[in-house]
């Protein structure tokens, strides 16, 4: 970690006097309390969160590559077709539920996809934090490679772009493998409204 801080010193100099991410973490440990399913372990940063905070989301290329490779190890890709049911995928993409302190544990979560992405042309109420995914499968096809890429990206976006703002929806336990397959279908199935 010390090595990381030294390298980062050259990349992003935080303003003098600003608390470090470690110090902020200590403050949060004191000032937050567990509620519902949201336990206190969530204020502890992992290596990805720490590096992205320290570098203001611009990590040095070498370090980013190493940590992305670590994240890739978390991605478990099921055998066989990864294309589920796009209709179920649409419902998952619409839902913003899951993992908050007032969500019931055990109830299925959503992917909050429309919060940030444009997907189906039928849904005009979409966010713009992430890129538009309209016509995603139409452009790329649905080869096994593309399926694996989409599945992996949804499972752990940080394996592909370390400081992406997209949650690690599989690795964080938000979505099940079945739900991720349904989202793959929403993006890749030629019958999906995304590809109309």
């Amino acid at each position: 970690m010390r090595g990381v801080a030294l390298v980062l010193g050259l990349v992003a100099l935080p303003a003098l006097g600003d608390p470090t991410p470690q110090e902020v973490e200590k403050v949060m440990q004191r000032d937050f309390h567990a509620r519902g399913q949201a336990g206190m372990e969530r204020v502890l940063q992992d290596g990805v969160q720490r590096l992205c905070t320290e570098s203001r989301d611009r990590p040095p290329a070498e370090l980013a590559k190493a940590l992305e490779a670590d994240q890739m190890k978390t991605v478990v890709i099921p055998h066989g077709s990864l294309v589920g049911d796009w209709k179920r995928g649409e419902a998952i993409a619409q839902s913003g539920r899951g993992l908050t302190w007032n969500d019931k544990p055990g109830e299925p979560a959503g992917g909050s996809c429309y919060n940030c992405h444009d997907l189906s042309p039928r849904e005009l109420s979409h966010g713009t934090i992430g890129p538009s995914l309209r016509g995603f499968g139409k452009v790329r096809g649905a080869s096994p490679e593309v399926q694996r890429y989409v599945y992996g990206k949804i499972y752990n976006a940080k394996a592909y772009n370390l400081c992406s703002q997209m949650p690690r929806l599989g690795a964080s336990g938000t979505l099940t493998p079945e739900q991720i397959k349904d989202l793959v279908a929403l993006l890749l199935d030629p019958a999906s409204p995304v590809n109309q």
Partner: protein
Amino acid sequence: MKLAALGFAAALAVPAQAQDAAKEIQRYRQMVAEGSPAELFELEGEALWKKPQGPKNASLERCDLGEGPGVLKAAYAHLPRYFKDADRVMDLETRLLHCMTTLQARTREEATKRVFGSADRPSEFESLSAYIAGQSRGAKIEPGMAHAKEKASYELGRALYLQRVGAWDFSCASCHGDEGKRIRMQELPVLQKPEAARAVMASWPAYRVSTSQFITLQWRMNDCYRQMRTPEPTFGSETTVALIHFLTVTARGETYHGPGNKR
């Protein structure tokens, strides 16, 4: 009021009219500008300010919000600030809690049992915030930045804004970090920038049309962290005050014109 709110919500729910949403909000704001629902909360807050409560059966009328005991004029516009008697930086709600536990001798536990209310029954903090913020209309936003603890609070707030944390790896800047972004149809102000912070901070706390609730800055911090999938920040904690302090300092110089109206 309810009807107008319903009509407004219905307009938002129709996708074909989604692009008109911003215009609708503007129209609605103009409509209520002359008689804001926030005024009802201000009146309730005034009654609560003067109501004797707690073991000491005292009102809050001697509460010192920084301008002297009982002085309300421009007090909100100068918060958060350092208070010597508590040896810490406090925002309005934290200071009110301090006055409840000292002047009224209420326990912290009792006074914070219900910090965020509902449409039917606002919390004490919501009504009091409406009343006290209203006494700052026309005053320049000028939070404390002279004391060492005020500078430290501002710096902590700035660092918290950028701390990536929680089950979904978000920081405040994940949503409020780039110009021109939206969540669904909701535009997201880049709150580290004075231009954006000024407009926002000059109108909080506010009446929220979609839920018919009066919402405060402590509520805003709490509900952002909920959506960030972290555990819950404690009401009046240094964390919530530091974030509010950072945002308010970023907005300084703006004339306060709240309590405002939100979607």
